[in-house]
């Protein structure tokens, strides 16, 4: 058993229960004692620069809550949370823990991980890459090494690096998103990729629009690792994205009630209908 860690999800990955559950399964299989925390009680506040009072409160509360988790290492899923902890929270609040990204932890344990990856995943994939959110962490290179452990999986050279460190920062700039997706799809087709592999949930959420419209299958790297371990998760967000306005019927009355119909109509259905790329534009 490795040193106990706090596995810090952040907020928005909760859209992807399949990714969260696959991460937990992988950590358990690696015999890493991980206390899972996430959601607004642990929000890093990185997106709140337009309301510094709120951001300051979130930083204070999250530093406190992660300290109170009582483990010497926090392992972040989210690049935005990791960057905010390094750049802002730890410089303005006492922490008392070390920080790593999940990719680093998986890479460190890649020897044991390789023993768990027993099923073939016959797929040629292209990795969706941005600039690394931290110049000290060669994160995309580490993901390439990790994916290369999956039997049957071929990771194509790629070569295009999207601007920014994740797609969420580009989503508010449709022209940038359009150009980025155009280059990504063209390169994936040129190289004969059967799927585009995302690392972060922010990219996954946006780029699933390419899959929903039939341009290019999109898979998250964690789900590919889980599949090779014999654990299959359906990507439910993809089904919502594909259904777009029909997601309400797909969810059914019980789950619509759990979410609240007004919120679903106002916020979730427009998100499902949003597309990052229109090929004829």
């Amino acid at each position, binding site marked *: 058993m490795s040193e106990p860690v706090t596995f810090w999800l952040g907020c928005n990955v909760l*859209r992807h*229960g399949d990714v969260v559950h696959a991460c937990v399964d992988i950590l358990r299989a690696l015999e890493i004692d991980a206390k899972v925390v996430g959601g*607004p*009680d642990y929000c890093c506040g990185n997106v709140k620069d*337009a309301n510094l009072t709120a951001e300051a409160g979130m930083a204070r509360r999250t530093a406190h809550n992660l300290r109170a988790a009582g483990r010497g290492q926090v392992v972040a899923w989210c690049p935005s949370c990791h960057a905010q902890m390094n750049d802002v929270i730890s410089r*303005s609040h006492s922490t008392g823990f070390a920080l790593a990204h999940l990719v680093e932890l998986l890479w460190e344990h890649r020897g044991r991980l390789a023993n768990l990856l027993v099923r073939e995943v016959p797929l040629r994939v292209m990795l969706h890459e941005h600039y690394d959110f931290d110049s000290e962490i060669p994160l995309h*290179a*580490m993901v390439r090494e990790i994916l290369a452990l999956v039997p049957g999986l071929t990771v194509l050279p790629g070569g295009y690096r999207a601007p920014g460190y994740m797609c969420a920062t580009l989503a508010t700039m449709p022209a940038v998103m359009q150009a980025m997706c155009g280059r990504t799809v063209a390169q994936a087709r040129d190289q004969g990729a059967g799927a585009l592999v995302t690392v972060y949930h922010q990219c996954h959420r946006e780029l699933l629009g390419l899959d929903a419209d039939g341009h290019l299958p999109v898979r998250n790297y964690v789900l590919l690792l889980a599949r090779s371990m014999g654990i299959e998760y359906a990507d439910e967000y993809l089904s919502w994205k594909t259904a777009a306005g029909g997601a309400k019927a797909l969810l059914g009355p019980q789950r619509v009630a759990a979410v609240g119909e007004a919120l679903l109509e106002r916020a979730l259905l427009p998100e499902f209908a949003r597309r990052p790329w229109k090929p004829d534009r």
Partner: protein
Amino acid sequence: MSERSSTAPVRSTLGPPEVEGVKALFQRERERILAYCTQCARCFQVCPMAQGDPALAAADPQRAVRGVIEILRGQDGTPEGLAWVQRCARSGVCEANCPEPISPKMMLRVAAIVALGQLGDPPRYAARQDPDLFNKVHAFARLTLTPEEIERWTVAPAAREPRES
């Protein structure tokens, strides 16, 4: 292949706090950047977001950076500077290209915070804030996690305790 050796630890040790609170940190960064930046404009020249925008790519780099510095000084800034601040996606390519002991990525972030009126200066622009940001997080948690997982994973112990009246 990763450049990191297989024996290197993955953890990054977080240092002690340099200041107390987020606002104090951004204010201190503002002062540091104003003290050290020489406006050489290398950060602008290597920025993929600036170079990917025809109008910004054609702008005078020094004028763009001067605009950012003026915003940090509490002035209006140049149109190019303000446009660059709003376009920054934190690619971070600028970091390795700055010859001074400052972070250009932080420079653009603090300039945005100043321009949004969050450090006491008049706002130059308004950012769209999503009023349903956390409503959506809670909603998706209800769709993707079990009630037990929501309770165990997303409710911090302090939030379970009754608040003092």
